[in-house]
């Protein structure tokens, strides 16, 4: 219903690498159909990092899973489209999807130990992935495996090629996962909370690495996180998700310093910060309540029961997307209403 045309990231001439349009994901249950993703649209350009931020239940991980075709049945894409470099990739068969995953889209998940096979050496896993997605010989695949470990900064990579995942520390393991995501030369990487399980000093290293490799190779990145600080330091643009909808999307600096949506402002205010230039005082901004469950998403704007600026229209009708320069917001404060 809501017209949902997002502004394209910057220059309209270059077609975006990834275009997600009006994506709706549904979970049929006995008590009715749930919609964890409800009309999400965004684009990612080559070499760009789009942050997708939100609290638990916002639909950020499930959006990533929908893009790479990893939704578990009966969860399914009900409508909308996912286009990668001009080709629709929603609705592909499992066989076709396998060719997309790894070769065209790499993935990095939160827990590196679950992304790696504990029974195979790092080198074998990397070489196997290269063989599956690139037309290379075994020897070349092994050479690529070694180079990829060097690229992600594994010390003494040649000696560690035959090591097993358990012989690596948490941070080194996540580096291996990044090597694995990039070895098939993908155009897009989906990184879902890639540093949430890591210590803060390692987090900084991993994010710096991810950013450097993807920018150098022109890989687009969808970085899913709950951490506004990570968004600020790592991403070019950000989409703030709430209850399965994009509340606000735009260039990161602009969205974080001059938020148009009350939820974005609430998130920023409730996040304690270590920045020496920001005084946090003795009270954090409180957004009352919590993210609604999927079974009882409020009518109208899903945020209205928690919103400090809620008006009567907010609970009656869902706001449309309003374009504000290079960003866009879904909020009645920015829209003329009847």
């Amino acid at each position, binding site marked *: 219903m809501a017209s949902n045309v997002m502004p394209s990231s910057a220059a309209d001439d270059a077609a975006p690498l990834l275009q997600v349009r009006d994506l709706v994901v549904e979970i049929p249950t006995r008590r009715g159909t749930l919609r964890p993703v409800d009309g999400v649209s965004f684009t990612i350009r080559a070499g760009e990092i789009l942050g997708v931020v939100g*609290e638990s239940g916002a639909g950020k991980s499930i959006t990533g899973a929908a893009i790479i075709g990893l939704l578990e049945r009966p969860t399914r894409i009900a409508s909308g489209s996912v286009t990668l470099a001009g080709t629709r990739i929603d609705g592909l068969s499992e066989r076709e999807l396998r060719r997309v995953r790894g070769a065209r889209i790499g993935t990095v998940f939160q827990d590196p130990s679950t992304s790696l096979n504990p029974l195979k050496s790092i080198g074998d896993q990397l070489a196997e992935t290269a063989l599956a997605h690139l037309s290379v010989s075994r020897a070349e695949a092994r050479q690529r495996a070694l180079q990829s470990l060097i690229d992600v900064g594994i010390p003494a990579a040649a000696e560690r090629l035959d090591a097993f995942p358990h012989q690596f520390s948490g941070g080194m393991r996540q580096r291996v996962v990044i090597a694995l995501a990039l070895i098939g030369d993908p155009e897009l990487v989906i990184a879902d909370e890639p540093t949430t399980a890591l210590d803060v000093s390692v*987090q900084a*290293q991993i994010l710096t690495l991810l950013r450097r490799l993807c920018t150098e190779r022109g890989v687009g990145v969808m970085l899913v996180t709950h*951490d*506004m600080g990570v968004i600020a330091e790592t991403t070019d643009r950000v989409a703030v998700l709430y209850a399965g909808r994009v509340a606000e999307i735009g260039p990161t600096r602009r969205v*974080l310093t001059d938020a148009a949506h009350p939820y974005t402002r609430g998130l920023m205010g409730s996040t304690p*910060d*270590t920045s020496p*230039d920001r005084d946090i005082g003795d009270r954090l901004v409180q957004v*009352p309540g919590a993210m609604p469950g999927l079974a009882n998403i409020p009518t109208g704007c899903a945020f209205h029961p928690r919103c400090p600026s809620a008006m009567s229209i907010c609970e009656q009708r869902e706001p449309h997307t309003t374009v504000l320069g290079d960003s866009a917001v879904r909020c009645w404060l920015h829209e003329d209403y009847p």
Partner: protein
Amino acid sequence: MSGAESSTIDRVPVRDEAGDVLVEVQGLSRRFDVSSAWLNRVVRREDKRILTAVDEVSFSVNRGETYALVGESGSGKSTIAKMVVGLLAPSAGSVRIDGTDPANARPAAMTALRRRIQMIFQDPYASLNPRWRVADIVGEPIRTFGLASGNEVGKRVGELLEQVGLSASDATKYPHEFSGGQRQRIGIARALASEPELIVCDEPTSALDVSVQAQVLNLMRDLQRDLNLTYLFITHDLSVVRFMADTIGVLYLGRLVESAPREALFERPTHPYTRMLLDAAPRLDGFERVHATDGGEVPDPISPPSGCHYHPRCAFRVDKCDQRYPPRRVLGPSEVACFEAERVLDAGAGSG
């Protein structure tokens, strides 16, 4: 700050003039035997493997204040919390809470002490009994310590629930009927039920979303002010520490490397590890910020580096750092275990 002379402190960090000390931790250590089974060890000719989780840690907490212990994985922060509340016996050193040592207290003294110390846990799903109603969860400490009886218990439970932002009618519900943030409020109400003076909080908001974390942190500060509570706050999150703590102790591989008032620690860190942590923490205004990370990670705590554990990662390292552990000393408002603390101080708070 009378003790401005750069004296070496071996075991006693207590600042004399800081009148009302509630918790005093001295030379606290805890070792765990993580060896393989005896027979395997003999067959494989392995030595015993001892993990020193906490190594000679000393600090004190003033009444009505918040002392935060911050550190990455393996720093020993949760082990210290367990020893402070008496859930784990120290291998060496002592904990004194208002003069009583929980490890060596007589049963009667220990019961009296238990009422005065409570704990809030990280996981609000695991720390509440799913088969108990909220009235029983929050009422149990009241009954156990005989603080009320009969109908008075229910009335008191209702008061406590309202104090933490729930309603008295929630008492009849079960934990699964609440969200994560509400469950943490129930955990706080239970901790308050015995009218404690000290609450040990082990990562109390790490499992919560930021908007809910803000609600819980604000509540904890309000309660501290209203009830004159003392918090020992355990966390890995520097931004939470900055909001909550009066004084902060930084742990690295079981050792307390720096202890300082909040402003000093954030503005003028004196230990290279503190400085690195501050630099690594993401900032909300850190657009295009380049981190000066050291590329290292916390090493295996079973075989930590010699001397100062941090030396292999340290940008300020000098020759003696790998030979002996630097003694703790006073530098301005901070206490620091680093030979080169003056240089760290001069270098300022990170690359910004």
